[in-house]
């Protein structure tokens, strides 16, 4: 591993000053960054540990009523926070469906947002990768597989964003608070995860300080569904987060996002608009899911993910309205807890 300096500043000002060094990187739990450093995909000269900074911990309620998730909040603390469980349990479900218990004990909110693109070539420094460095090219261009994107990709990158949490945050319309030496600003979550065509996200020297969830959250009637072969410690082949507000038999607000299909948690205003004013039900959900997938195309041997993603979106919407018994036992899982006895077969 390339030698590096390590700092654990105790003021935001000190952290931001350290981050003006172009070789400096913010460091939360290290669960992704250290892997990238070990394989040589990331070679920072300085790590700025943000876990001692004031105001980056915990879940709190902002003055305007929104939920504020600290950037250095551990995933495991997020997942069992009383405010989250009461007002946005979707986020708990998404977090608990990801990684492993040990990783969640270390990983932070902001670190989750800024995970490396999910493509094997990103972590192989010998492979050309336009997302990793300035060399042109993409080793996955001719050989994309089941883990690559079907939406929003282009020839510069076919990688997907790996996060579960971000899919839930996207569905809830979260925004991100960012600090620089010039001051604080707020951006939509999507700004952090631009499509390959849109260039880089965080400007140099910027630090995420919090994630904000709108008040009157959609998180109550919400569901995260994650499809993957392995029940734990596996990225989503495809996932979906859905949140609905229903009044008088009509959907009044809606959030819908997909994971595992694009470089960003995938939302489309048209899909959400199609839900609003409609009665919740299979036809409504199918129409929204079809709009969400509009324009999808295989980037390799992954065309099946398009139809699968539609079904996953429909499932998430359906279970947001009608929770399945036992679904909390395996967060995000298509399955509930295993039975001890033989099921009755119809």
């Amino acid at each position, binding site marked *: *591993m*390339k*030698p590096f300096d390590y700092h654990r500043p105790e003021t935001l000002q000190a952290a931001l000053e350290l981050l003006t060094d172009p070789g400096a990187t913010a460091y939360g739990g290290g669960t992704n960054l250290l892997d990238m450093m*070990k*394989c*040589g995909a990331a070679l920072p000269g300085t790590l700025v540990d943000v876990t001692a900074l004031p105001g980056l911990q915990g879940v709190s309620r902002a003055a305007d009523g929104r939920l504020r998730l600290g950037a250095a909040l551990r995933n495991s603390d997020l997942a069992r926070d009383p405010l989250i469980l009461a007002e946005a349990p979707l986020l708990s479900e998404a977090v608990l469906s990801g990684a492993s218990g040990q990783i969640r004990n270390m990983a932070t909110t902001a670190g989750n947002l800024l995970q490396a693109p999910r493509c*094997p*070539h990103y972590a*192989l420094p*010998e*492979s050309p990768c336009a997302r990793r460095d300035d060399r042109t090219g993409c*080793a996955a261009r*001719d*050989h994309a*597989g*089941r883990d690559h994107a079907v939406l929003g990709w282009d020839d510069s990158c076919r990688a997907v964003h790996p996060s579960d949490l971000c899919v839930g945050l996207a569905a809830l319309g979260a925004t991100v608070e960012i600090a620089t030496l010039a001051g604080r600003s707020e951006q939509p979550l999507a700004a952090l995860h631009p499509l390959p065509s849109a260039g880089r996200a965080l400007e140099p020297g910027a630090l995420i300080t919090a994630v904000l969830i709108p008040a009157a959250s959609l998180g109550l009637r919400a569901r995260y*569904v994650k*499809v*993957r*072969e*392995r*029940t*734990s*410690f*596996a990225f989503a*082949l495809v996932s979906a987060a859905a949140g609905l507000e229903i009044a008088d038999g009509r959907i009044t607000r809606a959030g819908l996002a997909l994971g595992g299909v694009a470089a960003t948690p995938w939302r489309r205003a048209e899909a959400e608009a199609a839900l609003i004013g409609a009665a919740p039900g299979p036809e409504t959900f199918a129409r929204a899911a079809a709009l969400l997938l509009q324009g999808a195309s295989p980037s390799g041997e992954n065309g*099946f993910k398009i*139809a*699968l993603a539609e*079904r*996953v979106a429909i*499932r998430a919407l359906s279970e947001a309205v009608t929770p*399945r018994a036992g679904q909390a036992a*395996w967060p995000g899982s*298509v*399955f*509930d807890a*295993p*039975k*001890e006895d*033989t*099921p*009755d*077969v*119809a």
Partner: protein
Amino acid sequence: MSHDSYPMRVMDAAEHGLTLPAAPLRYGSGGKVPARRDGLAKVTGAALYAADRQAEALLHAAFATAPVARGRVVALDTQAALAHPGVVQVYTPANRPPLAQHPDEKRHPFNFRHEALQDDTIRYAGQPIAMVLAETPEAAAEGARLLAPEIAAEPPRVDHDAGTPWQPEMVGFFAPAQAEVGDVARGLAEAEQVVEVEIETPDQFHNAMEPHAILARWEGPEKLLLDTPNQGPVMIAGLVAGYLGLPEGAVEIRTPFIGGGFGSKLMIYGAMILTALAARDLGRPVKTVLSRAQMYGPVGHRAGTRQRLRLGIGSGGRLTALDHEVTALASSFEDFVEPSGHASQHLYAVPNLAMRHSARRVDRGTPVAMRAPGEASGSAALEVAMDVAAEAAGLDPLAFRLSNYAETDPATGRPFSSKALRECYAAGAEAFGWAGRPAARMGRDAEGRLIGWGMGTSQYMCTMYRGEARVKVHADGTASAAIAGVDMGQGAWTILAQCAAEGLSMDPERLRLTSGSSVLPDGAVAGGSGHTATAGMAASEAGRNAVEQLISLATADPASPLFGAGNSGVVARDGRLSRADDPSRGESYSEVLARAGLAEVEGQGVGERVQAHREGYAMFSHGAVFAEVAIDPELAQMRVTRMVGAFACGRILNPRMVQSQLEGGLIWGLSFALHEEAQYDPATGRILNADLAGYHVPAHADIPQLTTLTVAEEDPYVNALGVKGVGEVGITGSAGAIANAIRHATGFTPTRFPIRIEDVLAHL
């Protein structure tokens, strides 16, 4: 043995082998089943694995590896590496100290050809191309990165289609590539129906929890101590000596604890030789710990296969012919071929039976044995074909297998030394509830999920080698045994002590076992599920031999109550000898030794199979595995919800260890069916998922309710202990059972392993 006296210390460098007393804790079923001797040391961290060991003035090694699968190393920036603080030396083919044996010279079947920096050729991605020695592991790793190799790459042969066809004469370890009994063409022609199944299996990697690690230290010009996990310490110590130009016995391998081997720790590999070489050259101990990624290539894998099975079905659902065609991937420089076809040659009664192996040479690391080599992949394909045939014959899968039950080995015509497979079918079916299985698609459960039930037959050969052991009875009434046993988690520490104690007719709690070093009597390799049979029998025979000496002493001593009884007139029981005709007349072992003025007697024992039995009988462990799957009807996500395996493995020495082995086998079968697959980059031949996040094995949440049963089976021919192997049989049958359950749920016949969501999605 009290808890306090249990050894919690670490081994020191002078110790040849580790000595463990019986485990102090007896938990579970009535205290009759010995608990793991190594258990407390492992859970408390006192058990040192090779990478845990330290030495004075230790240097750390790291490898730079090839980023492409074929080509040449043109340049390495050794100056940059040497300039990095802490880096002491960089070895490349240009300056690597000489070896007495070329790494590509094969003097012994287990002398796998490997890369020890002999030249600049790249034969697979991940191949070691330079070695960096440094004061810290971090400095060594950074030195390796700074070498930034310049490569002249050539297009790699990465898969079956690009591979160079090659016709091997032998597959696996000395097994024939082709065989035919009867006339398969005629058998197929005469069949009422012929079914054909084609299935592809991927490259799989052993992924033992413990990485390969070597700590080499020279204790003299002709004395090398290697701490390294190894499944064949005596054999491999001899092979290592050959590369280093050392006399026999100059190398000691210490391997008291192995964190999983599965075949990948039964081979010579470059890092082992180079670590010893570097330690000699630099005059300091050297430690190498392979990274997880570096275990994908240089230390073997299970080769991918394409298999085609044709089954002819005659009247009454009887097989008329079975043809098993296998194309396996092989490396460009070694000759190991996955012997998948053997899985179908001894299992079902079929008069016309053939297997045919061919290979494709590709630019990948060399495959080797991986848990149930051949049988695992061959059984997975065979059992799917059997279910397709059962359906064609209009029979329940179990009924179809029973109607083709082999009373004698179909390949050789020999009788089985024992075969309680019928009892396995019955016990497994009963425990699973198989009788309630609908013949057509299974249907849905209360939550609307598709349910399927499938089964498969398990079979694995009863391997035996030649092993030796030494057992002593001491004047204080205790005993000790010494053997180069191999405990890779399967329980050798416990079982070998049990066997020695059984031979001694003593309580295992009174016996100390010294094991885990190549300087001890050769317990032979731990592979092919033959270690307990071989080393256990040797330990038992050594104990018996010691008792015979005690009996000779007693019966010849006029002062003994046994005087004149003759050896056959004396019975040994619980540390005592007594007259067969009058059990009240006897004395303890220590009394015999005390009167003889001896501190101890030493017994020698050999474990090996009786030649006439080997030639006269077919010897196999058997079993029947039943699996249930639940499948989401829209999303195609699958989960195995129940597995039952019933096994006939001869005498069960320790139910606790056996259950663990059999459950591990079922889990491996599940892993084979649904998870494991190495993914190669078609452009470079690199493995793209060379880590435990990308290469999936099941998580706890994937493991369903497992039930393993053993049925009684007495075998007077397999070996003196009557034991058969349990380590690998559980993998066979289980992958096929899961595939068949998916088929029962969906009607889809799998064409590849692992079975993927997209495969099933297209058939919902």
